[in-house]
Every structure is written in C-alpha cells, then in structure tokens.
C-alpha cells in the first residue's frame, strides 16, 4: 500500500456515517499501517528473545554453574544482552511504533515519508542485532545500557536520526491549531533521546571524561533514558489513551502544563543519586537526590490529572483491555517515582544502594509503567491497522493477569531481598558472602515471577501473530474483557 498516495479528502458527505472525522482517521490509520506494524513486529521478536535471556539470567543468580563453561552464556555477557535487547529492541521499538501512530493521528495528517521510518526500523534492528551479538562475543563496553560496541551504536544513531527527523517533519505538516499534550511529550522524547545518547557516547567513548566522572555520566544516562525517553513516551501515550477510550476531556490543561515542564526540568538532574557514598563531591549526589525529591511535583500533578479524568469511569476497566493496561501503567508510574524518591534518600540508599532493590526500581519503570502502557496502546492500535478485532478475550485477560502478578511479585521480591541484602552488607560482623546467600529465596521467587512474565509474553506474541496473519475476529464490536451487560456498553476500545 502506498501510504503517501492516499489523499486527505476535504470533509464531504460520507456514505458511511456522515462523520468527516471518521473518514480522516481511517485514512490516517491506513497510512500508518506498514511502518507501525514493522516497528511492532520487530519489537515483539525482541521481546521474546529478551524474555528468554531474562529467564536465563534470573536462574543463573541462584544456579550459577548452569552453562558456565560456555563463554557467551556467562553472566557477564547474558545480563547486558538481556538489558539491551529489552531497552533498545523491545521498549524503544514498541515505543516508537506507538509514538509514530499517535503522531500521525494528532497531527491530523496522513503519514508522510514512510520510507524514512522503514529505513529507520531496518537500521535500528541491524544496530540491535550487531550490538547484542557484540556483547555476547565479548565486545561490551561495560557501561549500563550503553554496552553496545561503537559500531552498533553508530548504526543505532543513524536509525534514530531517520525516525526523529520524520517526527519533526510530521509536526511541521500538522493541521489544526491545537497541539495536544501527547504531542508535547512525544516531541520532547524525540529531541531528548539524541541529547542523552550523544552526551553519553561522547563523554564515555569519544572523548572520555576522567576517572570516576565516567560512572557519573553513565548513571545520568541510564536514569534519564528511563525518565526522558521511556517515561515521556509512556506518559504521552497514557495522556492519549485514557481520555480517548472513555471519551471525556483530560481534567486540566494547567495540571498538564505544570506536569510536563517540571518533569522535563527535574528529571534531567537525576541519575547521580544511584551513586550515594561513591567517591564524588557530596553536592553532586545531593543535587540529584534533591531533584529526585522534586519529581514528586510532576508525579502528583500527572497522577491527579489522570485520576480526575478517570473519575467515575473506573467501571470501564472491567471491559476495555486498553484502558486496563494503560491505567495499570499510569498508576505504576506513581509507584515507580515514589519508590525512586525513597531509595535515593541517603539514609535509605546507604542500605539499598548496589543491591537488588535498584533492579526492582528499573523494572518498575521499564515494565510496570512503560511496558504496560505500551501493551495497552498496542491493544488499541493493532486492530485499527489490520482491520480485525482481537480474537480471544481470554488471552487478553491471561496476558494482563500474568503480567500484573509477574511484575508485582518481581518488584516485591527484589525490594524485600534488596533491603535484606543491604542490611546484611551494612552489618560489619557478617562476611560479604552471607549478604548474598540470605537473599537466595528471594531470587528464586523472582525466577517464579519470570516464569509468569514469560507466559504472558508468549501469549501476547501468539495473539499478535494471529492478528498479523489476518486471523482476528471480523466484527463491528470490539473484544471486551468481560461480556457487556444487557444494556450494552459504549463501544470503546
């Protein structure tokens, strides 16, 4: 399908429903079909690979001798491979897919320059393949989330430039005066990522800063990738999906403005709080902690805005898959941020720094918040791209509960285990090895949660595959999670 070839018609009397907005939306959806599905399909493949690597990593923590004689299956290579597949393969690609669709819809124009996006997706996949291959062969750089070797990083950057320039071009072609909240976040994300990525690459590899400052740069990058890239896409998506599905305006423009600008301002100061008691001038770390405390402002604002929008519509969570996933993610954003504030305070970080608790924090942000929001958006977008409804409500329900319980269990296990590990590390009469041995039961519990998440991802991948093959339901009614009562529900997915 030649997406650019579809003219955006002037409003006319339509035979279908007499609604020009519908016709416009249909044209836009059709034009986003190939690029968005390409991003989504690649993301799903990376999700499955990343899940398998994750399970392997998790089991290795309590069964360290498993396959330890094979060099590319050692802990030091599989763990960064898992993280990078999830961060760049799954989360970034799925996030970009959703961002592209939202951008086209909100700019109210058919998707232009689809070749930019197709080339971008191709190069991005190539970059991740080379990067993960490089890590497994021992080429890792050793900085968290920047482990990809130089040759992969450059390809990734080219791919990114293509996608981001597409986003800016689309924004130039936008119609209508209003710029919706989601567009602020998406445009922000598309401009913040290159800033983070070039700063990280330049200061760590091209002209490396000296000594301990490298870890300051490394953590600034990792933390802000979570906030300014994934966080911005996640929040932007939630700002679209929640009011869209329930058909009600977002509660307050003022709250949205404050939430956006304080988020941008304070998030970019964070990162160094992950290095409490490291060999840094105290003010550097304290400045990051203070900024983390100040992120309470955007969290409270955005949380309140979403909550007041949802007010009175919570019963719809029973029916709409999109709403259920998105609201779960939006609530997790609050939890993630408050946990982040808690574990960054010096008095707490003293115990939990460098323990499993920081793994719990990363998973809260990247999974409980971001990934769940993206799942929600995929449940909304994919039927519009393939022209079919999701086939099985039961699979969606299974997917949701396995994901929700899985990530909940993982967070609890790692937080509790992290606190225990930290308390033992802080106790001078215990040897170091005891601090790791006491959390073995928690690590086994985490592996259990990993099994749940693996199941949920395979279920979703299967369902997504059915949709892709055109095996979804042909129906005018969306796939609800639960049968709608006699009076019928508003059709909204």
């Amino acid at each position, binding site marked *: 399908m030649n997406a650019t070839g579809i003219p955006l018609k002037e409003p006319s009397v339509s035979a*279908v*429903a007499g609604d020009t907005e519908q016709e416009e*939306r249909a044209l836009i959806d059709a034009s986003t079909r190939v690029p968005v599905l390409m991003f989504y399909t690649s993301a799903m493949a990376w999700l499955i690979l990343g899940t398998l690597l994750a399970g392997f990593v998790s089991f290795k923590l309590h069964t360290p001798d498993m396959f330890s004689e094979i060099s590319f299956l050692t802990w030091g290579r599989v763990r960064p491979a898992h993280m990078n597949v999830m961060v760049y393969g799954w989360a970034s690609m799925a996030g970009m897919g959703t961002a592209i669709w939202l951008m086209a819809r909100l700019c109210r124009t058919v998707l232009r320059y689809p070749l930019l996006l197709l080339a971008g997706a191709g190069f991005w996949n190539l970059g991740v393949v080379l990067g993960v291959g490089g890590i497994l062969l021992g080429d890792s750089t050793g900085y968290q989330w920047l482990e990809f070797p130089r040759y992969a990083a450059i390809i990734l950057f080219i791919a990114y430039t293509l996608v981001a320039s597409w986003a800016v071009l689309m924004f130039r072609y936008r119609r209508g005066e209003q710029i919706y909240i989601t567009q602020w976040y998406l445009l922000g994300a598309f401009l913040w990522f290159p800033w983070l990525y070039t700063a990280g690459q330049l200061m760590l590899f091209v002209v490396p800063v000296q000594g301990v400052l490298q870890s300051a740069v490394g953590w600034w990058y990792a933390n802000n990738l979570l906030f300014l890239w994934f966080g911005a896409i996640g929040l932007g998506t939630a700002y679209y999906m929640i009011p*869209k599905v329930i058909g009600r*305006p977002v509660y307050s423009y003022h709250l949205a403005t404050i939430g956006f600008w304080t988020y941008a301002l304070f998030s970019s100061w964070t990162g160094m709080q992950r290095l409490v008691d490291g060999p840094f001038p105290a003010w550097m770390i304290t400045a990051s902690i203070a900024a983390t405390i100040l992120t309470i402002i955007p969290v409270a604002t955005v949380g309140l805005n979403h909550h007041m929008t949802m007010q009175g519509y919570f019963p719809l969570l029973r029916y709409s898959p999109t709403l259920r996933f998105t609201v779960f993610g939006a609530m997790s954003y609050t939890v993630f941020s408050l946990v982040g504030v808690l574990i960054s305070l010096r008095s707490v970080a003293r115990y939990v720094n460098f323990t499993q608790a920081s793994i719990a924090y990363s998973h809260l942000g990247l999974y409980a918040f971001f990934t769940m929001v993206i799942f929600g958006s995929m449940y909304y977008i994919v039927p519009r791209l393939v022209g079919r409804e999701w086939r099985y409500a039961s699979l969606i329900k299974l997917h949701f509960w396995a994901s929700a319980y899985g990530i909940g269990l993982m967070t609890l296990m790692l937080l509790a285990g992290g606190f225990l590990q930290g308390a033992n590390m802080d106790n001078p*009469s215990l040897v170091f*090895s005891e601090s790791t041995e006491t959390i073995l039961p928690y690590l086994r519990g985490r592996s259990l949660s990993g099994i749940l998440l693996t199941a949920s991802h395979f279920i979703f991948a299967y369902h997504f595959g059915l949709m892709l093959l055109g095996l979804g339901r042909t129906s005018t009614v*969306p796939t609800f999670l639960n049968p709608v009562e006699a009076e019928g529900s508003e059709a909204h997915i």
Partner: protein
Amino acid sequence: MNEETPKLTPPKASGVGQGMDYGEQADVQQVHAAVQREKREPRVGAEPLSIWLIAVYGLAVFFGGAYLGRYSGNFSGDALDPYGGEAHAMKKVTGPQGAEQVAELSPHDRGKKIFAANCQTCHQANGLGVPGQYPPLAGSEFTTGGSRRPAEIVMKGLQGPVTVKGQKYGTAVMQPWDKTLTDQKIADVLTYERSEWGNSASPVTAEQIAALRKELANHPESFTEPDILALPADAELPGGPPAGAPPPKPGEAAKPNAPPKP
C-alpha cells in the same frame, strides 16, 4: 466514591449496519468499525489548580531545598562528606578524652569474620569439622591448650595423620596461612577459635604472632603430628597474658590499646 456510572448505550446503529471490515473492502471509504465507533480525539479541560496540590508543591520544594542545604558538603569540590567536609570529620576523631571514639569490633568478632571466610569450609561453622577428614576445633586439645600449638598449625599448616579427641583424621592437608593472613588476622582468628563453641583459652595478640613469624621464618614445610606433639601441650607464645587469664567474652569491646584494624 462516585454515583455517576458510565453512560452505557448500544453501538451506533449506523456502525452496525454498515461497518464492514477494512480488510474486506476495496474502498477505503468504508471505514473500519473500530474507527467508526471510537470516541472523538481527546480534548483538554481547564479545571483550576487545587490548593492542596499547591501545598504538595510547597512541601516538595521545601523538603528538596532543605535536603540540598543539609547534605551538600558546603558545595565544595573536594568534600566527600555530605555534612561539610573536614571540619566535621575532625570533630568526630577528637572525642572528649582525645581518644578515638569510633566503635570497633572486638578481636572475637573480627576473628569470626576471618573464620567464616577462610576456615569454615573445612572446620565447619560449628567447629566440629568433618569426621575422618577435618578435625574439630571445638573442645580439641590442640586448640584449647597452650597457644603455641594452634598458632604454629595455623601459621604453617599441617599434613599427615593426626589424632584429635581420640578420632583419627588425615586424608586432608591444611594449608599454611602465614603468607595469606596478617599477624593481626591470625591472632584474631586464634582468639575466636579459642573462645568459641565452649572453648575457653587465652586470647592471642598480633605481637605474639609477629614474634612467632620471625621464629618460623626459615621453616618452609608444613608441620606433621610428631612436630606438634614435640611441643609441650601447655606451651604459650611469648608475650601473652599470664596463664589462667580469663578468656575474652564474645562481643567484648576492644581495649583502648588494641591495635588498629588491619
């Protein structure tokens, strides 16, 4: 929390009647049902800011600012201490009597850590060893007698058959520790072994081990049982406390003249 329930209405009749699927229609104007039934694009309301939210902002700014002021180390580039660098650290060191006030682990507790890291694998946490392989330390006549015998065994190791508490051992070789552990650590672990598991023998100091180390400087190979038995059972290392001194209680604080932690 809310009486207001979502307004539930059946799908639009027009959608049901005409909404064939996109995939089945050549004409793109026949819009996919999902697009037909969906709500209009989101708009933004303009509710005012709540006074409570402004209070939350104030609290966050106050807390963040106070935190920055308190733990900034005076914004000095070389202050690693969040409380303000060296001035504070000096105060900590010079206590009321001018002596070091920092709480320190007792030799017994230090010895416990060293034991757990180095000895526990063979002699076990309960000090009972493994029958036939690793002799026990709990109640062993070698451990609880004079300090000289156990000190020499730890320094240079032991090989060959040995009889402890009437049981024969000898399949395993004990490695010498004089190259691995410092005088202080060997003294601490001996003190621990001689006062744990019901043992109650005198403590050992780093000075004693240092003297023994000089004495054994030209003794390359491991000891055997006859070497050890050649020493009197109650032979003490020179410079120790008078025989019969009460053993240190576990958890006892370090004496003021205790050597600094290695």
